[in-house]
């Protein structure tokens, strides 16, 4: 070390100390007292901002309830969707509750809690249309991941019934990928920029049916705008569709926090809090209808 100047020796000393300190700090488990939850605040009814600027919605109510159960203080941070996951990984918040659908691809980059809503998609038509009479509404779940002969038969019947019809779908969504895979050669697929435009055109008679997530459809059908809609066919799940929605965490880092969150969520599901909140915001039970 003779060739080094004094300040260089100091630098080496500092770096070595810092490394030792960092290693010892990493060894002790972090105690969670305060949890920062990020959301978009612009995706009704999951999370939205009311006229007074306050965050509200299904995920906000649920998150606050879970924080009480975990005995931690929660801080909500509203972030643009594009900033949610970079911010999570940069440590700006500890978890994200923003209607994040769990897919295999996302599992490679994030850790997820248990589901707090199950996702499925369904075709909707006008109550007065012939399709509403010819295809019945069913509570069966068609799992596109594991197709059996029976579900294949149902799918073929549906194809036949919808053959030649115009079907509206929001562009670049899982529903669009589903139509592309299974219905491309028999129906006319019409792309829309938003889900609202799809249901406006269904009511206007420009399309015969639409396919969208039930978390969008059910609240809509409870309003004046959606009162003429009827559901047909089974619930679709698996394949291109995410199984459900969960809170997202940094990949494999805060395992205790994920465990705490899951334990609290389990309690909230068992005592009916989740169902209650779901009825309030979605007008149906996202944990029951349909269960996996």
């Amino acid at each position: 070390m003779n060739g080094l100047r004094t300040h260089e020796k100091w630098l080496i000393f500092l770096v070595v100390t810092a490394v030792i300190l960092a290693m010892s700090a990493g060894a002790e488990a972090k105690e969670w007292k305060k949890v920062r939850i990020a959301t978009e605040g612009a995706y009704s009814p999951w999370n939205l901002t009311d006229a007074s600027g306050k965050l509200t919605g299904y995920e906000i109510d649920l998150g606050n309830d879970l924080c009480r159960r975990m005995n931690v203080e929660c801080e909500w941070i509203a972030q643009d969707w594009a900033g949610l996951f970079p911010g999570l990984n940069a440590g700006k918040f500890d978890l994200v509750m923003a209607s994040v659908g769990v897919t295999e691809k996302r599992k490679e980059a994030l850790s997820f809690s248990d589901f707090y809503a199950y996702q499925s998609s369904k075709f909707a038509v006008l109550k007065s249309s012939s399709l509403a009479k010819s295809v019945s509404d069913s509570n069966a779940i068609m799992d596109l991941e594991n197709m059996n002969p029976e579900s294949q038969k149902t799918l073929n019947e549906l194809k036949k019934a919808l053959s030649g019809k115009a079907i509206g779908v929001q562009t670049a969504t899982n529903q669009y990928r589903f139509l592309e895979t299974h219905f491309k050669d028999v129906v006319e697929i019409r792309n829309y920029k938003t889900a609202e435009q799809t249901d406006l055109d269904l009511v206007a008679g420009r399309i015969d049916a639409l396919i969208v997530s039930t978390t969008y459809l059910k609240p809509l059908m409870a309003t004046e705008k959606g009162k003429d809609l009827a559901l047909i066919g089974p619930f679709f799940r698996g394949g291109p569709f995410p199984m459900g929605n969960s809170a997202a965490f940094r990949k494999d880092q805060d395992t205790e926090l994920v465990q705490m969150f899951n334990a609290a969520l389990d309690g909230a599901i068992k005592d009916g809090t989740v169902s209650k909140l779901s009825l309030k915001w979605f007008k149906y039970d996202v944990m029951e209808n349909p269960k996996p």
Partner: protein
Amino acid sequence: MATFMTIAIATCAFFLGLILGSLGAASKLSRSPILRLAGQVYTTIFRGVPDLLIIYLFYFGSSGMIMYIAGAFGYTGYVEVNAFLTGMAAVGIISGAYSTEVFRGAVLVLPKGEIEAAKAIGMRPWLVFRRIMAPQILRLALPGLGNVWVSSLKETALISVTGLVEIMRQSTICAGSTKEPLLFYSIAAGLYLFLVSFSIRGFHWAEALTSRGFRRN
């Protein structure tokens, strides 16, 4: 509120850009090759990298870096980086790179004879700058600076990714919460248009003020 936030960021960033721009132009025009290289690197990087990427790097990168350094010293807590400051710095540094070129262009068209004349009558460099160069640079740079201002104003929309509530973020929130996207994005567009046209008037007025005594060709 959101409109004020947009104006605040744009104004702070623009003035930061003016300072950086003058420094940048001074170093690009200086005799020292190191300063010239530094100026060159600055304008090349910040005019060459997409603005959104710079904002991402500043906002998410800076807190990651600070936490990494803090973590190395045994501090595992969270270090908050102010969204306003980082957003303002990002837009300011980008606008500084453009202002550099505007100022440099203005300096290059100054008539050499006037500066030589000023030196010949014994003015010191600072006096030459203050009396001969600065007033003319201001006049020549104003139209270009107007452009830089307008683009900074619109760049603030990109800061919405940091969660700072300016016009763009506010309209996303309103659009998603009310399911009336067209209405709220139209309002946002109108607001930007209003701010831009309003401030362009200001620049025209300033241009008229500084070019008194010059005939327009």
